Protein backbone atom coordinates (compact mmCIF):
# COMPACT_ATOMS: atom_id res chain seq x y z
CA UNK A 1 0.00 0.00 0.00
CA UNK A 2 1.47 3.32 -1.08
CA UNK A 3 1.88 6.21 1.35
CA UNK A 4 -0.38 9.25 0.68
CA UNK A 5 1.72 11.88 -1.12
CA UNK A 6 1.65 15.38 -2.62
CA UNK A 7 3.11 15.96 -6.09
CA UNK A 8 5.22 19.10 -6.42
CA UNK A 9 6.14 20.67 -9.75
CA UNK A 10 8.55 23.48 -10.57
CA UNK A 11 8.65 25.64 -13.68
CA UNK A 12 10.99 27.98 -15.54
CA UNK A 13 13.71 29.64 -13.43
CA UNK A 14 12.72 27.67 -10.31
CA UNK A 15 12.95 24.38 -12.18
CA UNK A 16 16.43 25.32 -13.40
CA UNK A 17 17.72 26.63 -10.04
CA UNK A 18 16.47 23.57 -8.15
CA UNK A 19 17.41 21.21 -10.97
CA UNK A 20 14.07 19.59 -10.22
CA UNK A 21 11.03 19.30 -12.41
CA UNK A 22 8.86 17.24 -10.14
CA UNK A 23 9.01 15.47 -6.79
CA UNK A 24 6.72 13.63 -4.46
CA UNK A 25 6.58 14.26 -0.70
CA UNK A 26 4.54 12.56 2.02
CA UNK A 27 1.22 14.29 2.74
CA UNK A 28 1.11 15.99 6.16
CA UNK A 29 -2.06 16.60 8.18
CA UNK A 30 -3.36 20.21 8.18
CA UNK A 31 -0.67 21.33 5.75
CA UNK A 32 -0.87 24.63 3.86
CA UNK A 33 1.05 26.07 0.92
CA UNK A 34 3.22 28.16 3.23
CA UNK A 35 3.99 25.14 5.43
CA UNK A 36 4.98 23.09 2.41
CA UNK A 37 7.16 25.94 1.11
CA UNK A 38 8.93 26.28 4.47
CA UNK A 39 9.58 22.55 4.60
CA UNK A 40 11.09 22.62 1.08
CA UNK A 41 13.20 25.70 1.92
CA UNK A 42 14.62 23.88 4.96
CA UNK A 43 16.45 21.54 2.56
CA UNK A 44 19.00 24.36 2.26
CA UNK A 45 21.18 25.29 -0.73
CA UNK A 46 19.17 26.58 -3.67
CA UNK A 47 15.98 25.43 -1.93
CA UNK A 48 16.36 28.21 0.63
CA UNK A 49 15.58 30.71 -2.15
CA UNK A 50 11.96 29.48 -2.17
CA UNK A 51 11.35 31.64 0.88
CA UNK A 52 13.84 34.34 -0.13
CA UNK A 53 13.42 37.69 -1.86
CA UNK A 54 12.32 36.43 -5.25
CA UNK A 55 8.56 36.25 -5.70
CA UNK A 56 7.21 32.70 -5.94
CA UNK A 57 3.73 31.97 -7.29
CA UNK A 58 1.87 28.82 -6.42
CA UNK A 59 -0.95 26.76 -7.90
CA UNK A 60 -2.79 23.92 -6.18
CA UNK A 61 -4.44 21.47 -8.58
CA UNK A 62 -3.77 23.91 -11.42
CA UNK A 63 -5.60 26.84 -9.82
CA UNK A 64 -3.76 29.88 -8.43
CA UNK A 65 -3.37 29.54 -4.65
CA UNK A 66 -2.35 31.58 -1.59
CA UNK A 67 -0.02 30.83 1.34
CA UNK A 68 -3.05 29.78 3.39
CA UNK A 69 -4.44 27.35 0.79
CA UNK A 70 -4.66 23.79 2.26
CA UNK A 71 -2.53 21.03 0.73
CA UNK A 72 -4.01 17.55 0.94
CA UNK A 73 -2.97 14.03 -0.06
CA UNK A 74 -3.15 13.60 -3.84
CA UNK A 75 -2.87 17.34 -4.57
CA UNK A 76 -0.61 18.70 -7.30
CA UNK A 77 1.22 21.78 -6.06
CA UNK A 78 3.23 23.92 -8.52
CA UNK A 79 5.74 26.63 -7.70
CA UNK A 80 6.88 29.10 -10.36
CA UNK A 81 8.10 32.66 -10.98
CA UNK A 82 5.63 35.40 -11.97
CA UNK A 83 4.32 34.55 -15.44
CA UNK A 84 5.68 36.25 -18.57
CA UNK A 85 3.75 34.93 -21.55
CA UNK A 86 2.05 36.77 -24.38
Amino acid at each position, binding site marked *: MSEPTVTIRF*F*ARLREELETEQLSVPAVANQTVSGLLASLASRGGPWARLTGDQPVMVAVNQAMAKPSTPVRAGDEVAF*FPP*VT*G*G
Partner: protein
Amino acid sequence: MISIQTEDFCAGSEHQALRGAGPGTGAIATFTGLVRDSGDLSGVTGLFLEHYPGMTEQVIQGLIDEAGQRWDVQRARVIHRIGPLALSDQIVFVGVCSAHRGDAFAACEFIMDALKTSAPFWKKEITREGEHWVEQKEMDVARTQSWDQEA
Protein backbone atom coordinates in the same frame (compact mmCIF):
# COMPACT_ATOMS: atom_id res chain seq x y z
CA MET B 1 -11.19 27.97 -28.92
CA ILE B 2 -7.75 27.72 -27.35
CA SER B 3 -4.60 26.23 -28.88
CA ILE B 4 -1.23 25.86 -27.20
CA GLN B 5 1.19 24.69 -29.87
CA THR B 6 4.79 24.67 -31.07
CA GLU B 7 3.73 25.21 -34.72
CA ASP B 8 3.21 28.60 -36.30
CA PHE B 9 -0.31 29.80 -37.11
CA CYS B 10 -1.88 31.72 -39.99
CA ALA B 11 -3.52 34.94 -38.82
CA GLY B 12 -5.43 35.14 -42.10
CA SER B 13 -7.09 31.76 -41.57
CA GLU B 14 -7.96 32.71 -38.00
CA HIS B 15 -9.46 35.99 -39.18
CA GLN B 16 -11.52 34.13 -41.77
CA ALA B 17 -12.80 31.70 -39.12
CA LEU B 18 -13.93 34.63 -36.93
CA ARG B 19 -16.03 35.89 -39.84
CA GLY B 20 -18.03 32.68 -39.71
CA ALA B 21 -19.85 33.49 -36.48
CA GLY B 22 -22.96 34.62 -38.38
CA PRO B 23 -24.79 37.59 -39.93
CA GLY B 24 -24.84 39.47 -36.60
CA THR B 25 -21.06 39.96 -36.62
CA GLY B 26 -20.06 43.57 -37.24
CA ALA B 27 -16.59 43.75 -35.74
CA ILE B 28 -13.42 41.66 -35.49
CA ALA B 29 -10.51 42.78 -33.32
CA THR B 30 -7.25 40.84 -33.35
CA PHE B 31 -3.91 41.07 -31.61
CA THR B 32 -0.72 39.28 -32.58
CA GLY B 33 2.44 39.32 -30.48
CA LEU B 34 5.81 38.85 -32.22
CA VAL B 35 9.36 38.13 -31.02
CA ARG B 36 11.10 41.51 -31.17
CA ASP B 37 14.79 42.30 -31.02
CA SER B 38 14.75 44.08 -27.67
CA GLY B 39 12.96 42.97 -24.55
CA ASP B 40 14.66 42.85 -21.14
CA LEU B 41 17.85 42.46 -23.20
CA SER B 42 18.79 44.00 -26.54
CA GLY B 43 20.02 41.92 -29.46
CA VAL B 44 17.43 39.22 -28.84
CA THR B 45 17.76 36.46 -31.44
CA GLY B 46 15.01 34.21 -30.13
CA LEU B 47 12.88 33.07 -27.23
CA PHE B 48 12.14 29.84 -25.46
CA LEU B 49 8.62 29.54 -24.07
CA GLU B 50 7.68 27.13 -21.29
CA HIS B 51 4.17 26.58 -19.93
CA TYR B 52 2.16 24.53 -17.44
CA PRO B 53 0.10 22.14 -19.56
CA GLY B 54 -3.46 21.83 -18.40
CA MET B 55 -3.44 24.86 -16.14
CA THR B 56 -2.71 27.17 -19.09
CA GLU B 57 -5.83 26.11 -20.97
CA GLN B 58 -7.99 26.41 -17.83
CA VAL B 59 -6.76 29.92 -17.08
CA ILE B 60 -7.29 31.15 -20.65
CA GLN B 61 -10.77 29.59 -20.79
CA GLY B 62 -11.55 31.47 -17.58
CA LEU B 63 -10.44 34.75 -19.19
CA ILE B 64 -12.58 34.10 -22.29
CA ASP B 65 -15.56 33.32 -20.06
CA GLU B 66 -14.99 36.50 -18.06
CA ALA B 67 -14.76 38.56 -21.26
CA GLY B 68 -18.05 37.00 -22.40
CA GLN B 69 -19.73 38.10 -19.19
CA ARG B 70 -18.48 41.66 -19.53
CA TRP B 71 -18.89 42.26 -23.26
CA ASP B 72 -20.80 40.94 -26.27
CA VAL B 73 -18.41 38.24 -27.50
CA GLN B 74 -19.67 36.06 -30.35
CA ARG B 75 -16.47 34.06 -30.76
CA ALA B 76 -13.02 34.24 -29.21
CA ARG B 77 -9.83 32.55 -30.38
CA VAL B 78 -6.53 32.31 -28.49
CA ILE B 79 -3.36 30.69 -29.84
CA HIS B 80 -0.13 30.68 -27.86
CA ARG B 81 3.05 29.09 -29.07
CA ILE B 82 5.56 27.30 -26.86
CA GLY B 83 9.12 26.03 -27.33
CA PRO B 84 11.85 27.74 -29.33
CA LEU B 85 10.91 30.83 -31.36
CA ALA B 86 13.04 32.97 -33.67
CA LEU B 87 13.18 36.74 -34.13
CA SER B 88 9.93 38.08 -35.70
CA ASP B 89 8.10 34.79 -35.12
CA GLN B 90 4.48 34.99 -34.04
CA ILE B 91 4.04 34.20 -30.33
CA VAL B 92 0.38 34.79 -29.54
CA PHE B 93 -2.90 35.52 -31.30
CA VAL B 94 -6.10 36.80 -29.70
CA GLY B 95 -9.12 37.37 -31.93
CA VAL B 96 -12.64 38.35 -30.91
CA CYS B 97 -15.76 38.97 -32.96
CA SER B 98 -18.80 40.86 -31.78
CA ALA B 99 -21.77 42.86 -33.04
CA HIS B 100 -20.03 46.11 -32.07
CA ARG B 101 -16.49 47.40 -32.30
CA GLY B 102 -16.24 48.68 -28.72
CA ASP B 103 -16.94 45.20 -27.38
CA ALA B 104 -14.55 43.52 -29.82
CA PHE B 105 -11.68 45.88 -28.94
CA ALA B 106 -12.29 45.72 -25.18
CA ALA B 107 -12.64 41.94 -25.00
CA CYS B 108 -9.55 41.38 -27.18
CA GLU B 109 -7.38 43.76 -25.16
CA PHE B 110 -8.69 42.42 -21.83
CA ILE B 111 -7.93 38.79 -22.75
CA MET B 112 -4.45 39.78 -23.94
CA ASP B 113 -3.64 41.88 -20.87
CA ALA B 114 -4.94 39.29 -18.43
CA LEU B 115 -3.20 36.42 -20.25
CA LYS B 116 0.13 38.19 -19.73
CA THR B 117 -0.26 38.31 -15.97
CA SER B 118 -2.23 35.15 -15.19
CA ALA B 119 -1.60 32.41 -17.76
CA PRO B 120 1.32 30.17 -16.74
CA PHE B 121 3.82 30.87 -19.52
CA TRP B 122 7.47 31.79 -19.00
CA LYS B 123 9.67 33.37 -21.59
CA LYS B 124 13.42 33.03 -21.82
CA GLU B 125 15.21 35.54 -24.02
CA ILE B 126 18.14 34.29 -26.05
CA THR B 127 20.95 36.57 -27.23
CA ARG B 128 24.45 35.94 -28.57
CA GLU B 129 25.74 36.60 -25.05
CA GLY B 130 23.45 34.18 -23.23
CA GLU B 131 19.99 33.47 -21.93
CA HIS B 132 17.74 35.29 -19.48
CA TRP B 133 14.34 34.50 -17.94
CA VAL B 134 12.16 37.53 -18.61
CA GLU B 135 10.96 39.40 -15.53
CA GLN B 136 7.30 40.23 -15.07
CA LYS B 137 6.65 43.93 -15.75
CA GLU B 138 4.92 46.15 -13.22
CA MET B 139 3.22 47.89 -16.13
CA ASP B 140 1.66 44.60 -17.23
CA VAL B 141 0.32 44.01 -13.74
CA ALA B 142 -1.03 47.57 -13.63
CA ARG B 143 -2.73 47.13 -17.02
CA THR B 144 -4.50 44.00 -15.81
CA GLN B 145 -5.54 45.64 -12.56
CA SER B 146 -7.00 48.58 -14.49
CA TRP B 147 -9.60 46.20 -15.98
CA ASP B 148 -10.75 45.35 -12.42
CA GLN B 149 -11.17 49.02 -11.61
CA GLU B 150 -13.25 49.43 -14.75
CA ALA B 151 -15.63 46.64 -13.77
